[in-house]
């Protein structure tokens, strides 16, 4: 059981996490943060395997992974 959490205010919607997630857990959401970026949300949270590749690719440290 693993969980991925996005710190919405840090996300800049670059999409690196989405590209490299092996299980397609993440997608760009439809809400915006205070900087105007449509931040990433976990759309298939149950598929997360906790590999933390999303977190390593994220330039802004916006992703937290729990296992």
């Amino acid at each position, binding site marked *: 059981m693993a969980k991925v959490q996005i710190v919405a205010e840090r996300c800049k919607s670059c999409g690196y996490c989405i590209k490299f997630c092996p299980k397609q857990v993440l997608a760009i959401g439809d809400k915006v943060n205070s900087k105007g970026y449509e931040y990433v949300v976990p759309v298939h949270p149950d598929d997360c395997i906790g590999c933390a590749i999303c977190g390593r690719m994220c330039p802004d*440290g916006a992703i*937290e992974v729990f296992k």
Partner: protein
Amino acid sequence: MEKIYGRTKTIQEDKVSGFCPGCMHSTVIKLIGEVLEEMDLVDKAACVLGIGCCGLHMDYIAYDNTTAPHGRACAVATGMKRTSPDSLVFTYQGDGDFASIGLAESISAANRGENITVIFINNGIYGMTGGQMAPTTLVGMKATTAPKGRDPKEHGYPMHMCEILNQLTAPAYLVRTSCNNPANVNKTKQAIHKAFQNQLDGKGFSMVEIVTSCPTNWGLDPMKSLDYIEEKMLPEFPLGVIRDR
């Protein structure tokens, strides 16, 4: 549930960096922070930032840092290391800073074998000043000072700093990495770790050149900039360890 990955403590919690979406400056500074934390060197770290986008880290990182006059980070780092040998002194410079404006200081510091570490960000363009041509700009790549693309007859060819410094006797560790995929991000982190360890062991000048993207000034979205690195930048700047002694 236990947290297995999160923001490094060396990045201040209440601050979000001013970098553009997809900019790998943030990736690299995050990796440096993770390495400093893992090696328990946060209190000993003394970072010399170059001028340009790399200077934007100033308010964002939670360890000691200073900014050098444009291009002179290696010279400032030399002074810091010689007066405070117990500190972990490293410079963080872009290609316009390290390879163009500060070329004399950079090569001289490498030639003296100063016991410092250089983190050199190569994105092939001047970022903060608005996309001018850098020494590392690829042939044919458009820049505001080369609107039809870099023409070797007029502007020469891209400079390969690792290979240039490899002509010198003194440098201990020269490596070129990238951040365009998870494997390369991990290799970059290992390279930074080794470069810092070299300094602690007193081996002398180490440089990690990191091929990164500048989506804004390349005129590409972050995803396409990853493809650009793979297809255009990496054939010109092959990754690997150039020297390790």
